[in-house]
């Protein structure tokens, strides 16, 4: 999906409508796909809801719950009823939380937002800076170490990194708390900003790991390419030295692919949040997603799917705009040729990484 959107025509007022139509069709597809998957799921929502007591309730009570949730109707009817409500702005009620879906998402998203933003900034800034460093010092031990580290991170699962960090920093060193968004037992209003940050740092670090490697490796590659370009040779002939070259000539050239990648990675970030929040029992959107899936909370899961689809769409849109902002040469020529060229470049970069 991300690729399809990025390959789209350049953004002008006239094409905004096309983008919106694309978003709508995307949302419809996501809703149908999610619903089909859920309808085919073997988990019985009522059993998941009642939990261990399921043996103590009779079929009569079961039927009552089913009727109240509308589970006795055929899937197609349920879907059209839900879709009809969504069009009027009503996403339904979460069965697990017993609250309107929109409220659950808003609550949980606010909790996740600081985590996502911190992890996103961390991975972007670290990945970009280290990528510049590795590219500028290509072939040295520093470059080798950073590249090796990036490959290790890229192949390490998020939850495993999370457990590792938990073990080192929370259990052994006891620098960071083991779980949650605040001290256990404290009311949400009583948690200080410092406490919040203290509880945030380890999940954010874990989550940022998802995004560091691709940004680092792509930035390294474009740094190496830019350093070999004519305009850098010309700058060098004027007496410019390596730090000046990287700062004045390379950074902005390397920023364009890095920014695009970082924005296009919003989807992976949200995917990573599901795992990271689970490991750290962080009460965010990711944890709500797991809960909704495990307990067949269909309205909530559909709502979250739509919401994250919009987030990813916005991420891609911003990536396009950011790319345009730092690479002025792509602004005017616009057209499909230049776009596909820049995508092709990214593909080539990705391929070169496989054999460093």
């Amino acid at each position, binding site marked *: 999906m991300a690729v399809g959107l990025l390959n789209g025509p350049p953004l002008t007022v006239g094409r905004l409508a096309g983008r919106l139509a694309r978003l709508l069709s995307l949302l419809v597809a996501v809703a149908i796909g999610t619903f089909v998957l859920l309808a085919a799921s073997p988990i019985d929502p009522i059993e998941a809801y009642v939990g261990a007591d399921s043996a103590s309730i009779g079929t009569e009570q079961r039927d009552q719950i089913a009727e109240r949730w509308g589970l006795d109707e055929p899937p197609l009817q349920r879907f059209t009823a839900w879709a009809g409500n969504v069009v009027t702005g009503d996403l339904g009620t979460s069965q697990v939380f017993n609250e309107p879906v929109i409220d659950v998402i808003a609550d949980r998203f606010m909790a996740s937002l600081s985590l996502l933003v911190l992890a996103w900034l961390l991975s972007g800034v670290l990945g970009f800076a280290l990528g510049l460093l590795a590219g500028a010092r290509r072939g040295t031990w520093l470059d080798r170490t950073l590249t090796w580290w990036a490959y290790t991170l890229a192949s390490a699962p998020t939850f495993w990194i999370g457990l590792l960090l938990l073990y080192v920093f929370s259990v052994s060193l006891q620098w960071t708390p083991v779980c949650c968004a605040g001290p256990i037992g404290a009311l949400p209003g009583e948690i200080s900003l410092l406490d919040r940050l203290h509880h945030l740092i380890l999940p954010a670090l874990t989550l940022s790991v998802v995004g560091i490697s691709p940004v680092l490796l792509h930035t390294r590659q474009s740094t190496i390419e830019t350093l070999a*370009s*004519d*305009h850098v*040779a*010309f*700058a*060098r*002939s*004027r*007496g*410019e*030295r390596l730090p*000046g070259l990287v700062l*004045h*000539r390379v950074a*902005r*050239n390397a920023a*364009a692919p890095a920014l695009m990648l970082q924005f296009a990675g919003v989807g992976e970030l949200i995917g990573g949040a599901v795992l990271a929040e689970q490991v750290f029992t962080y009460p965010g959107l990711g944890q709500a997603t797991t809960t909704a899936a495990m307990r067949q909370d269909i309205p909530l899961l559909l709502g979250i799917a739509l919401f994250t689809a919009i987030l990813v769409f916005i991420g891609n849109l911003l990536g396009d705009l950011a790319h345009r902002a*730092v*690479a*002025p*040469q792509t602004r*005017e*020529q616009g057209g499909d040729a230049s776009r596909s060229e820049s995508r092709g470049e990214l593909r080539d970069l990705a391929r070169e990484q496989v054999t460093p």
Partner: protein
Amino acid sequence: MTTSPLRPVNPAPALLAVEHLAVSFTQYERGLRRRTVTPVTDISLDVRAGEVVALVGASGAGKSLLGHAVLGMLPPNATPAGSIRWRGEETDVQALRRLAGREVALLPQSLSHLDPTASVGAQLRRAARLTGASRAGARAVAREAVVAQGLDESVLKLYPHQLSGGMGRRVLTAIALLGNPSLVIADEPTPGLAPESVTAVLRRLRSIAEGGAGVLLITHEITGALAVADRVVVVDRGRTLEESPVEAFTADGERLAHPYSRALWQALPANGFRMADDHTRVGAGMRGEDLAC
């Protein structure tokens, strides 16, 4: 008329005197087998203030490496040997790096030498800062530099992709001449240009020399070199073959000492397109159609 490359013409020391320059590269082949290649084995030339010296040779003859060596820009795996003297004084890489951009300037002609993500103004200001201008002074220097090249100040706001070829070459010239260099190295300035642009570029080089600076024109297009140079140094496979005043390239080329230079001259369309049997490489490296325009 045979001349030694080291023949002193006037008593003042040359701006640049390169003697027996050799450049070798250490490379690692598959595995850890090390090998050394030496694309430049023995090049000598000198450039004096106010003259244009053309360094002529086929692609791969080591001309551009000489330019890079003079600017102290050889890659880390390259080892230079021989001597490069600046105003009579022996230099090392550090000294050459200090000269680069202040005393010695590279003058490229293709727009790929401008940073596509920075405005012309930003690049000129950075270049001015490198020549020692203050932050505030750089602005004024940048403005003056484009005006001196016959461009409007509004060019400063443009990005390289918005420039025409001619404007871009003027911007490159403005950047190269910012620090009032004593020596300008023009590396392959003319390939791919329309004839009238070639004339404009060569005329600009001539006027730089008339302004008192020395110009080293590195090219494989001998016709252009002959139109503007005072002396021509012919190199082949990394070594200097001969140095001749431009007048020696005339008639049948009998005043040229080396058979290679003679073959080079005779291979030009205007001189009969003749190719000596043992110099077919001349035709391969320096195509007639290149030379014609």
